Each structure stands twice: as C-alpha cells, then as structure tokens.
C-alpha cells in the first residue's frame, strides 16, 4: 500500500465519528530542478515536502494545523491543535461560517497518466537536455556571451477528505523550462527570455514551440535589445500578445474578482451584472485546459475537495461571476467554483486562480496591426502587479513600434499601465488565435500557486511608460 493510501485509510478512520466539519489533506510534493548557467551547473536539486494539513470548523470558526508526522498519533495531535486554534478565535469571530452541502464534492481517484511517464524519464536525459540547450543558446549568436537553461518538475500526490463527503486521491505533474540568453555588444548588456510551464508530461512543454524556437526567441530577445532605443511614453493604441493578455486577465482582472478580495472592497465589488468591458471580451478561469491541452494551472479537484469547472467571469463584457471557495460561495449563495488552493500541506486553502484567459473571436492579427497609426506590439511579459482599483503595471521585453499600420523596430523593455476595466472597455479587436502562454510564472498571494493564462491577441489602449524630454 502506498503512503497516500495508508494515510487515506487513517483519515477515513479518524473522521468516522467527528462532531464538527473537518478537512484532512495529505500532500506529498516532490520537485527536481536541473539548471546550467554559463556552462556551470547552477542547480541540481531535489526537494521533498510531505505532510498533513487539517482544518476544522468549530462553532463556525476555522482552525488549521499541520504536521509532517504521518503516524496516527501525529495526525491526532495535529487535529487537536487545529481544534485548539479554532477555539482561540471562537469568541472573536463575528460572522460564523456555515458550509452548506454541495454536489460538487469529489470522490474517487484522479490520476494523471503522465505522472509515471515523467517520473520514469531518467534524470540524465533531463539534465542532458538542459546542458545541451544552454550550450546551443550560448553558441547561437556572436552577440550572446552567456546563457541559462533550467528544467524543473513538480510531482504532487494528494488525498483530500472531508467529513461531508469529499474523498479523493489526486496525482499531478507539472514540468517547466526556462531559457535565458545574455546579450552583449561591448557597450551594452541585455537579457532575452523564454519559458514554458505545463500540466502533463515532457511533451506538454513543446505544444506551442519546439526547443529550437525557445532558443531562437530567447536569443532574438537579447540581440534585438542591444540596438533598441527607448520607446516614447504616453497613452497608446497597442496589440497585446496572448502572454500579455493572459497576464492582464490574471493580474488585473482575476485578482479583483477573487471573492475574498471582493469582500475587502476591490473595484469589482457590487458590479455583478454591469458592463465592465467591451462586448468582445469573454473572460474565464478554468480548472481544465480549455482550447488546447497542457495549461499549467490545470487541476481536477481543488484543495477543499471540490470538482473544478470553467467559470465565466465576464461574458460579452458583462461581469457575471466571482471566484469562490466554499465559504464565500455560501455567503453569495452560489455554487463553489473550485478555486480553493493550498501550496503545500502546511498552507491553508485560499481563493486562487487556475487557468485564466480571454476567449478568442474572429479578427485577423495582420488586420489588427494595420489598424494602428502610432502604437506598439507588446509581448514578453516581465512580471506585473495589480491593485484593488484595477490599476496594473506590467513589464514587457519584446516590444515593437507600430507606425502607420506596420510593425517597426524593437524598443527597449518598457512598462505598461492602466486601469484593467478601462483597458478592457477600449478593446476594439480580438483575434482568432489562442495560446496558453504564461510560461514558468507563478502567482503570489501569501502562498505561491502554479497558474497559467493566455488568450488571443487584443487591440486596446493603455498607458506606456517611456522617457520624457
């Protein structure tokens, strides 16, 4: 019997006569990272983090405790601590939590077949790929004087059991690849990136681009920037690539519709039913990999044992749903959307996104570019942040000027900003293409979470940071 099955059996026995709602989660997370930087192994590591997180609802108040002691005694001790923690807050809790029954509870085994396939691919094969890729990056151009390639994989095995009926075993695997090229022309140094992260086996890494294309894009990014001039700042009409659309959907819209953030007063509060975007915009968050396979945030069951679904957030411009865990779904009198996620066994589940995207429409990308007199084609996200107001900031490192409907030169890395809902209202064209393309990105909200995002190309208006005279 595997450790997960042993623990599941223990959970079943311990929760038989429980007087209050209890959630028990076993989580074994095993990751490996192989990295080579400038011909030197930069990381060769394996991390194993295994334990149990227990959440109890005592008199309408949550308490949580975790342990890496997987014996019956260890789990019982953690259960007792969780109860004590709930009691410590009981008389301070103003709004008692009630979890209504739901037909979304997951029961059964959800095992990804690629788990074993990737586990059985040898470490040597994976490392050799990394080492060879780093060498190819370095030797691809005379203007590249260094490179980095890093492969990581995370194997996750979970058992989630609740006293009201969830009882599932989940096995998932998520590989990632990162490519960086360091450009130099003597006077200037630049960095070009590309990356991919997916849910699935080795092959899911190459659904959008081949290894050669990753290398070419990273090298091109570094080399093009060597001669790039600063862009001019101001409000501009732009084309956003699928990766930028994904970042916008996740950071600038997605966070404002997480129900916990809504309750704290985000700009999306009270706007259900209102037009918040152009009618061309339908924005969703899904536990499945919609349109194409392999999206990095895919999960069949969330960490409260709820089956995940495709949640439509904005439908043809109208805000129709927030993202929920069981507690907030009860508060809003809707079904839970399967958005409760915990990073490790020692973390309590929070409302998090999964795969967030804008649905493609029918426009042709070339036509969209032709419709811009003076603007930018913006790709290559470099991270970003958004605010409760919907105001966002993203960096971009693959930006080209658009002059009179034609793509022009690359410009230096720049930052774009705006109010997300205002930007979505300015959308006047949405392409027919679709890509999951958040790369190796993770979301941070107290805990990390592996998420993905993507969509078509969008034409819209936003504020571009640049030099002033």
């Amino acid at each position, binding site marked *: 019997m595997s450790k997960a099955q042993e623990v599941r059996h223990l959970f079943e026995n311990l929760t038989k006569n429980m007087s209050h709602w209890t959630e028990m989660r076993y989580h074994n997370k095993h990751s490996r990272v*192989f990295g080579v*930087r*400038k011909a030197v*192994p930069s990381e*060769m*590591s*394996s*991390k*194993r*983090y*295994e*334990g149990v997180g227990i959440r109890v609802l005592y008199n309408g108040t*949550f*308490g*949580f*405790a*975790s342990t*890496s002691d997987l014996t019956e005694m260890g789990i019982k001790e953690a259960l007792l601590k*969780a109860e004590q*923690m709930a009691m*410590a*807050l009981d008389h*301070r*809790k*103003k709004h008692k939590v009630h979890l209504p029954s739901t037909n979304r509870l997951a029961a059964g085994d959800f095992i990804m077949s690629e788990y074993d396939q990737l586990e059985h691919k040898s*470490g040597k094969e994976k*490392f050799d790929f990394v080492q060879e890729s780093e060498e190819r990056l370095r030797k691809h151009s005379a203007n590249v*004087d*260094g490179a980095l390639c890093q492969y990581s994989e995370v194997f996750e095995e979970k058992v989630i059991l609740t006293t009201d009926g969830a009882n599932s075993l989940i096995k998932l695997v998520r590989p990632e690849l990162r490519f960086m090229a*360091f450009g*130099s022309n003597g006077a*200037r*140094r630049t960095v070009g990136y590309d990356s991919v992260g997916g849910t699935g086996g080795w092959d899911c890494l190459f659904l959008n681009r081949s290894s050669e294309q990753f290398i070419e894009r990273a090298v091109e990014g570094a080399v093009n920037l060597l001669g790039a001039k600063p862009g001019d*700042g*101001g*409000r501009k009409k732009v084309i956003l690539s699928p990766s930028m659309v994904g970042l916008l959907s996740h950071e600038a819209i997605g966070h404002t519709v997480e129900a*916990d*953030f809504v*309750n*704290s*007063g985000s*700009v999306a509060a009270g706007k259900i039913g209102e037009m918040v975007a152009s009618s061309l915009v339908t924005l969703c968050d899904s536990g499945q990999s919609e349109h194409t396979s392999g999206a990095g945030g895919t999960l069949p069951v969330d960490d409260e044992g709820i089956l995940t679904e495709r949640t439509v957030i904005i439908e043809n411009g109208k805000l129709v749903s927030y993202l929920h865990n069981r507690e907030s779904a009860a508060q809003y009198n809707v079904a839970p959307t399967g958005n409760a996620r915990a990073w490790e066994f*020692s973390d*309590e589940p929070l409302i998090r996104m999964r795969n967030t995207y804008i649905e493609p429409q029918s426009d042709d990308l070339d036509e969209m570019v032709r419709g811009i007199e003076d603007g930018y084609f913006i790709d290559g996200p*470099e991270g970003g942040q958004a*605010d*409760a*107001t919907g*105001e966002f*900031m993203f*960096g971009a490192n693959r930006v080209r000027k658009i002059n009179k409907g034609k793509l022009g030169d690359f410009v*230096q*890395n720049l*930052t774009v*900003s*705006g109010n997300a809902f205002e930007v979505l209202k300015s959308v006047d064209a949405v392409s027919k293409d679709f890509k999951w393309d958040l790369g190796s990105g993770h979301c941070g909200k107290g805990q990390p979470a592996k998420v993905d995002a993507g969509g078509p190309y969008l034409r819209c208006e936003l504020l571009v*940071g*640049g*030099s*002033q005279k």
Partner: protein
Amino acid sequence: MTYSEQSIKNLISEADQIISEVQKKSPADVDVFSVRTKEVRIVYENKDYSVSTNHTSTQHGIRCIRQGQMGFVTTNASTSEGLKQAAEEVNVISELTPSNEFQCIAKPPSTIGHFESIDIKMAQLSPQELAKYADELIQTATSDKRVSIDRAEINWSLSEWSLASSNSFVQSAASSTCSWFVMGMGKTDTEVTSFDYDGGTVKFESEIIPLLNKTVGYFRDSVVSAIGARSGKSYRGPVILHPQAVMDLIGDFISSNCHGLRQQDGMSSWKDMMGELVAHKDLLVLEDPLNVNRIEGWSPFDREGVPSSLHKLIDCGRLNFVAHNCFTAQRAGVDPTGNASGGSRSLPGIGFSNLSVSAQPQASLGVPEEKLFSMISDGLMVKRFSGNSDPTSGQFSGIAKNSHWISGGQIAYPVHEVMISGNMFDLIREILAIASSTHHIYGGGVAPYILVDGVSVTAGS
C-alpha cells in the same frame, strides 16, 4: 543551558546522521543547513478573523560535493528512514552533475558557537495572548473608518537553525519573534484607493505594542492619505523618493551590483571598479547582519556557516565591497565574506542582511526632511516603486504607487496612474539631497527620503 539547547542538539544529531549516511558511499564534502520552526499565526480578512494556524516543521538542506560534482536535496523527514532516503538521493543527484573545480563548502571558521536571541516571555507567548495583539492591530488600523483591511496577519515563531559540516564544525542559532503585516486600502462611497501595506518584527514581547501601533498607524495614515487621488503631470526632472522607494530602487540596485556572482558573470558593470566613484560622494550604503535590534535580518553566520559582519557597500560614493559565498570566493581566489544567503530549501545564494542607505556623516547633501521637501516646487514624491529595474543596464520603469504630488515644498494631493522611468547609474549620481533622518522599512531596511534628478514622469490623463 540556553533555552533551545536540547532542541538544537536533536537538530544537529539529525544533520550528523545525514552526513554519515552520505559519506557511507565514499568520502565527500557535505554540509547540512537545518531549520526547525514552531509557528502560530492569526489571520484577519473580509472584516473578520478568518483562521488561526499552528505549524511545526523541521527541514534539512543537504549539499554534497564529491570530486567537484555537486548535488542538493531538501527534506522535511525526521525519521531515520526518511533521512537515509534523502542522503541516498543527494548522492544520486551529484553523480549526474559535471565536475566543477570551484564547488566547495566552508572551511572551519574562526568563530563558531551557538547564538540566541530569545526573550522568555516571547518564547512562551500563547495563542490566546497573540489573539489579543491581533485585536490591537485591527483596532489601530480601523480607528479611521475609511480603512478597509484586505488581509492582516500576526505571527509568533520560535526558530532554530544550524549548519553542520563534514569539515568538523557546527554553527547554530535560535530566535523568538512576533511579526505582523496589514494590507488594505482606503475606501469611501465613491472611491477605492491603491492598496498599501506595513508591518514589523520584534524580539521582545514588551516591544510588540509600541511598534505595532507605530507601523499599523503608518499604514492607516498612508491609505487614508491616498483618498482623492488625481492625475499628476508629465515631466523630466527631480522627484523625492520615500524611504520605501529608496529601498525598492537604490537598495536593490546597489545590492545587485555588489553581488559576486553577477560581477563574475559580467552582469554588473562594477566588476573591477573597487574604490571607484560610482555614486554621489555623500551616499553611504551598508549591511549590518549582527545588529540584533534589527531582528528581521539578524544573522550571526551565513547559509554556509561563515561568520557575518558589517560591510560598507558604498562608502563616500565609492564601491567598497563585493559579496561572496564559498563558490564565488573560490572562483575569485578570495575568502568568503559571510554573505551566503538562503535557507534549507535552496542552495546558498548571495545576499545582504539589514541594509541601510543614508547620507555620509557630515555630508554636504544631508538636510532635514522639511528642507528636502522645500527643494521641490512642483513634482512627484514616490512612495513605492512597482515595476522593473534592470541592474545590468540600470534602466528602470514602473508605477509610482501610493505617491503624492508636491507643490511649493508641501504634499499637495495623492496621484494615480503615474509612471516613472530612468537609469539607476545616473540616478545615484544625480542625488540632490539626502534627509538626515532615516526610517525603518517593513522587511528590514533603513533609509531616508532622497531627492534625485533626471527621472521621467509620465502621467495618465
């Protein structure tokens, strides 16, 4: 006997078992960085307490170097079987790795021992007592009804950590702390402001209330002052950097360029510039890891067991220090500087603890804060920088968050949708004034207000 002596002995015993298991295969250099943490946390969100948590964990980060081949494994196992499995895994991983002549662990240092910063009252704080401090936090933050808390947390922890080495030495330390943070926004019937945050960490139980009231009060006043934000104006010229923005921009930039690996990799143009003028001559930047009164960054020894010490990174505007861990020191042919960073979950990197930015003593640019504000007649004061800053090229571009417009030397109104950009190499030379007083920043830094020139400010409509 110190407070944590027995517990530390157990931790080191597990590390010794790992070293012994790794070396059963064949001799190897092995170091094990172990951390044991007991933690209680109370979370407040959505205008109510949401959950309280209790967590105990032990983790070992195991590095094995055998004939230049290096592998690293992290485990949270404590059973003999689990530790043995981790030891076997690190041997397997190291075999995959090509040999590198610079891979090494630390030699026995001149100072070894056990270091503690434990206040008995703090170490024995109960969840019920912590909950009372959480009440104080919430009351202070919401004493102005326009404050909306997105999330607040208060956290008690007792941490013990050790570095055990096959080079026959052990370092260990322990601390008990209480830390908190609050994040939220100002809210009226018609407006939601940008969010802001603040927080603190203390080592004495008696310090909790004074610092909590001070830091949470800063947060409350900051988000309320952001109500009524308007557009700024576009220009290129002087801006005032708030101490937080000084740390975001200048602190990060200088740390990155005093980083041994970045210099060796050609990612910093300050390579071979030791002693040269790289910033305004009145600028002083230092790290102070032994300052136990700045407990967030207190670090008596580094991630590889090398003793820490105070370093002036920039002294009178001149590059004065390059930080090394064992790998980069070996490559440079120098001694490691005690700057190996990270924990049990990662290989040693390079980092700085308790960074301070200030005016050089008796600096001509050092002025009182009011005087510094009066030096700008119409322009921007940046509180937080949210954006991208490339330490290699020096280019930075991002949003000025929670920022204000200055008019006639006074804070006039809050602004939104203002972007700033420029070049950090120029910015640290074009300093016009440095406030003589400094402020403690959440996260561990200390910095003053600084007036800099040459920044592009782009305002939205």
